[in-house]
């Protein structure tokens, strides 16, 4: 290491960047294809898939597909629905899951081992297998709203939020990261008489920047990208539909691929933006908490 010359260092740096760029290409090419295709008329889009032109904005380039896509479906509505549902769910999820995980890792109470095993076991249950029972269940559930007591959660936002708030993965994520936090800090705080909630809020949460960001990103992806089957069966009115159900609007017998690509590009924007924001928060949170362990 001591013998590294400046030349050598430059070469290493170049090699590092070359690796990074090569890997980046592997991850980018389908997405470039998607964005570029959204600018092309269908005929050209399909013809171009057989050459390098698939990745290049060449030929007859326009925003026509975007205009047509907006005519075809109420995209703004779908995106507002999805973003709203996602934000509410993610915030509640982070709160409830981190509280539960805190209790599993730092508190000692009878039954926690069993309960945690049960929670982890639910990771295995694919949603598809419980969709019908869950549908029958929520269609009868009571709710106290503005008009008093009512039964049935169909065609609402809450039916798209509440069943999704808590999931085993998020709890498990917090559990695994909390295990790495310094236990002495917590015990010290308890010795000084802090309540458990104070410990959670003042000590554990501020140290949990990375896992908070990770949990928020992963949960929001799940809520935004994977909400298809459930809204399909519990929401019949257009006003409550999320983006993935909206994708169906574009699959007519003659698929307008250009519009599909435009729609896909549009609905991906909020998620990418959210990731960028969270990434920044996540890095600054590491910088601020500094040393751990």
């Amino acid at each position: 290491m001591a013998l590294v010359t400046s030349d050598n260092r430059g070469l290493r740096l170049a090699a590092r960047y070359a690796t990074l760029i090569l890997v980046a290409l592997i991850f980018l090419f389908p997405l470039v294809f998607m964005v570029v295709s959204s600018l092309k008329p269908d005929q050209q889009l399909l013809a171009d898939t057989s050459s390098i032109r698939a990745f290049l904005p060449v030929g007859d380039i326009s925003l026509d597909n975007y205009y047509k896509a907006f005519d075809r479906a109420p995209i703004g509505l779908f995106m507002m629905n999805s973003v709203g549902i996602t934000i509410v769910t993610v915030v509640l999820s982070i709160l409830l899951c981190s509280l539960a995980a805190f209790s599993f890792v730092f508190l000692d109470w009878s039954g926690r081992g069993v309960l945690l095993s049960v929670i982890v076991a639910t990771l295995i249950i694919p949603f598809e297998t419980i969709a019908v029972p869950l549908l029958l269940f929520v269609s009868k559930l009571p709710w106290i709203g503005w008009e008093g007591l009512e039964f049935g959660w169909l065609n609402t936002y809450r039916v798209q939020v509440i069943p999704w708030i808590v999931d085993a993965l998020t709890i498990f994520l917090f559990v695994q990261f909390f295990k790495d936090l310094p236990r002495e800090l917590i015990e010290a705080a308890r010795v000084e008489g802090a309540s458990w909630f104070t410990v959670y809020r003042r000590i554990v949460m501020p140290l949990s920047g990375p896992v908070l960001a990770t949990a928020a990103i992963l949960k929001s992806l799940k809520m935004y990208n994977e909400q298809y089957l459930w809204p399909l069966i519990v929401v019949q009115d257009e006003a409550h539909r999320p983006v993935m159900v909206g994708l169906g609007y574009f699959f007519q017998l003659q698929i307008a691929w250009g519009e599909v690509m435009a729609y896909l590009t549009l609905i991906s924007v909020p998620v990418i933006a959210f990731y960028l924001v969270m990434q920044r928060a996540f890095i600054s949170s590491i910088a601020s908490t500094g040393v751990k362990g």
Partner: protein
Amino acid sequence: MQRTKLTLGALVASTALAGMASAQTELTLWYHGAGNEVESNILGGIIEDFNGAQEDWQVTVESFPQESYNDSVVASALAGNLPCILDVDGPVMPNWAWAGYLQPLPISQEAIDGHLDATIGRWDGEIYSVGLWDAAVALYARQSTLDELGLRTPSLEEPWTKEEFMGALEAAKASGNYDFALDLGTAWTGEWYPYAFSPFLQSFGGDIVDRDGYQTAEGALNGEAAMEFGAWWQSLFAEGYAPGTSQDPADRDSGFIEGKYAFSWNGNWAAANTLASVENADDVVFLPAPDFGNGSTIGAASWQFGVSSACEHPEGAAAFVEHALQDEYLAAFSDGIGLIPATKEAAQMTESYAEGGPLAVFFDLSAEQALVRPVSPGYVVAAKVFEKALSDIANGADVADTLDAAVDEIDDDIEANQGYGH
């Protein structure tokens, strides 16, 4: 959170207002056309006319994406949340009627006089659904291709025989001008398979189930005729005449237009786009299905309107359907999205299906060759089994074993459903 609540509130308020403003009884209609602007506009126009033309009923529509429409309806039925008027795909109707989602449609006889038979959905001796249109399938080709390859142009009266058809495929393949001789549309999974391909099986003399009582598929789907059909079907792919199940959906949409395929087995709904996109529209011809020995047949019955069992006002629903069945609307749908109007009179009012029109042949096909898919609640499952069997055979599975397995599965299903009420 705040915003979602506000939207929700606004929505509640607006529907409440709408309810107060009208003395008409509200009937909700579910439709499969979300995302299809032309279709939505025509339907919207019909509803507007209907709501304005009488005092009793106020129809409102909720549109769904087609690919998930059936799932939405089944889910709503399970949850007890069905609307009054339902749009239902013809072959699925018996299933919904049997399951109790639908009630008979109290429609007057004169409203459906002269309609194509396949546009009337009957189950258990009663009318459950009526359609404004039918769909038909034809063999898309170019006259120039036929001439070049020295092929006889088949007609409704004298369709190609199996030998002629295979000869045509061989000639197209041998010419070397095409990626594939025949485009069957294997990229379109789902209902396309039974709809488009079971008529071939019927033309061979087999069927998806034994229509005598609908209690078994034994003999129909694995008898001699079916085995012969299976071997033929497999040869289409083994000999390289047609692209297999991994066909690119984009090729399905544009392959014939671009000249990649000599022949394309496709529905009338794709005809308008094809005529608009090919270089020489006059060159395109729509040929009837070949006769494999038992006559030429094509599938029939498309989307139709029915009344859900949850509807308290079937007479209102029937009034709406009768209103919608006017020839001008049938013609409007046909002009708008290329479907075959349900009556001759309406056909004459359209651009494409009037005598001498570019698609008139489809009306005749529908009238002459249409054979509805098995009218049984069990069809929904049998169709899935049939689809899988065909794609397995296309991919090289043993014909006899595959058809036997399909028969077993269909029979098990019929038994599990206690004969489906036949």
